[in-house]
């Protein structure tokens, strides 16, 4: 890939609403990404390997659990900072952001919110530095959009429980040290359990053949009579609402992240449109190309405003799940449309690894699917505004 010349775009001067510290966090993350990730990401995606050597650096820039309080090893930042960090990561690659989202919102968040004091002390500080990595097991082979139908289950066995079942499509699974797994107890109630690598009967085979999120590792979680100490069960909350609250946090980060991918595509296409000469003039001078660019920055600006406001609502504890669904759905779709238009603007060069657009486009196909598909988020909005359930 070429030198990463990315510059942010802030058409409505939203930077004026950020604090000095937000900007410092953003600039540091951007510099780190340009120095450490941009030079290697295209190669990692092409070879389909997760660049594990980046984990300590991700910890250093605060990408793991930015809102986790200092007493548990986190920096205790606000939700807008979390969003900013996710945006800077996804600006480079959605897979990189996925690794950080999972660690933050799907592993650290449930332990912080629903874990015992011992669990918080044992896991959170190491997860914050990246010394320990986690994954989140909700989806099953037969239960994707309908996680409540899960069949993974555990039975009582004195101080332990015996866990059986399988999870699929699990980000970070192949290398994770721990898995936050959602399973039903004998009464059919969903509980969160921390399963640790090395427990007998627990394996994490890698899933191969992805054409999307190739620089992120995805795998299965297989539980064959795994004996897990009862002290590894998250005591604070049960029922489907527990994993869904984690998804709220992750989806919120994705809403910010998707803008990053869109910005990178727009930035690349804008620069290309000024440099590429056809018919003796830069292609940016043709109305058809200007239409694409003008619509891109309009959609990006709308998404930025929506998402900044969502950040304020989340910081004041007022954001609802349907509000988060709306932002996730809108922004990922917006990013996909921009990626497709930007790719066309680069002509043949747009399909190569010289530029990041094709990679973003392929990555976003996962992002529009995971954490609730595009359709499912629409149904959430539909339910919210009509009060009528169209899921079943």
């Amino acid at each position, binding site marked *: 890939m070429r030198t990463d010349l990315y510059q942010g775009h802030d058409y409505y001067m939203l930077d004026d609403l950020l604090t000095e510290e937000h900007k*410092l966090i953003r600039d540091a993350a951007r510099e780190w990404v340009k*120095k450490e990730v941009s030079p290697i990401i295209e190669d990692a995606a092409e070879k389909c390997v997760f660049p594990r050597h980046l984990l300590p650096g991700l910890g250093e820039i605060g990408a793991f659990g930015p809102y986790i309080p200092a007493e548990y090893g986190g920096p205790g930042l606000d939700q807008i900072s979390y969003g900013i960090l996710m945006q800077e990561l996804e600006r480079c690659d959605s897979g990189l952001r996925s690794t950080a989202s999972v660690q933050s919102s799907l592993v650290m968040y449930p332990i912080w919110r629903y874990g015992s004091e011992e669990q918080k002390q044992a896991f959170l500080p190491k997860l914050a530095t990246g010394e320990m990595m986690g994954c989140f097991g909700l989806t099953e082979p037969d239960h994707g959009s309908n996680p409540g139908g899960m069949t993974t289950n555990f039975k009582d066995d004195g101080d332990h429980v015996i866990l059986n079942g399988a999870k699929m499509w699990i980000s970070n699974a192949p290398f994770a040290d721990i898995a936050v797994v959602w399973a039903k107890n004998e009464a059919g109630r969903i509980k969160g359990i921390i399963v640790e690598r090395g427990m007998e009967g627990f394996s994490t085979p890698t899933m191969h053949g992805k054409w999307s999120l190739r620089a992120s590792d995805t795998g299965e979680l297989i539980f064959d009579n795994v004996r897990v100490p009862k002290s590894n069960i998250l005591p604070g909350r049960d029922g489907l609402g527990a994993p869904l609250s984690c998804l709220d946090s992750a989806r919120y980060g994705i809403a910010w992240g998707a803008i990053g991918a869109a910005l990178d595509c727009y930035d690349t296409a804008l620069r290309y449109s000024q440099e590429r000469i056809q018919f003796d003039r830069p292609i940016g001078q043709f109305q058809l190309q200007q239409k694409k660019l003008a619509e891109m920055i309009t959609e990006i600006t709308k998404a930025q405003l929506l998402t900044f406001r969502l950040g304020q609502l989340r910081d004041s504890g007022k954001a609802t799940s349907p509000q988060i669904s709306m932002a996730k759905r809108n922004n990922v779709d917006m990013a996909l449309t921009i990626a497709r238009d930007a790719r066309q603007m680069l002509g043949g060069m747009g399909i190569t690894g010289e530029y990041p657009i094709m990679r973003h486009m392929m990555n976003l196909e996962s992002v529009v699917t995971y954490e609730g598909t595009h359709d499912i988020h629409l149904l959430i909005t539909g339910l919210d505004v009509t009060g009528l359930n169209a899921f079943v």
Partner: protein
Amino acid sequence: MKLLVCISQAPDTTSRIAFTNGNTEFDSSGVQYIVNPYDEWYALVRAIELKEKHGGTVTTLTVGEAGCDPVIRKALAIGADDAIRVDVKPTDAMQVARLIADQARSGGYDIILCGKETIDHNGAVVPAMVAEMLDCGFVSNATHLDVAGSQATLKREAAGGEEVVGIECPFVLSAAKGMAEQRIPNMRGIMSARTKPLAVESAESTSATAISQFTLPPEKGACKMVDADRPEELIRLLREEAKAI
């Protein structure tokens, strides 16, 4: 060891350069400021490395108004211990050097580290002026700095090679590329910068010079392609049109 690093802000290298007020002032609207790279990447980072090795403190000093605070916070996030800002709008090198020297005089610093120049005005004279005003030694364009006790060894760029210079503390240096490598502030640094002291000092100041006019360099002309097997045409163009030879 007490180290003082002089930090200035400078427009980001991608800034659009324009002037206002009858071309006598830089138009800062919409301009993003960064820490002047020579101050940050070389002087500040080397000072922090020396502190990590030998102990001591790193203080930053900036002459500038409140708009400089973000770059000062960044310097603190990278690892300086505390900061001083002299609350005066910088207008010329003599004025800035005098304000720096006034602050540094009573500080008992072993080394005062500056960048070799700022990337906006490129004056490159403040560090030498500070040394003169404090009546201490000065090494310019230093690419390497080591300290043992009160004795420092520096390397500096010289025509066609480099010089190795020994000097007794206290002294002033101006840092060039090579003295250290850029450090990106980590989250721990950013968090601790929140509570590090930033003292704002007021001072009287006068300038010896005033800007009469800024002008932009002439627009770059169109690129002329000369056929590879017609070197005589290239020579002719260089001689007659570009008047370069």
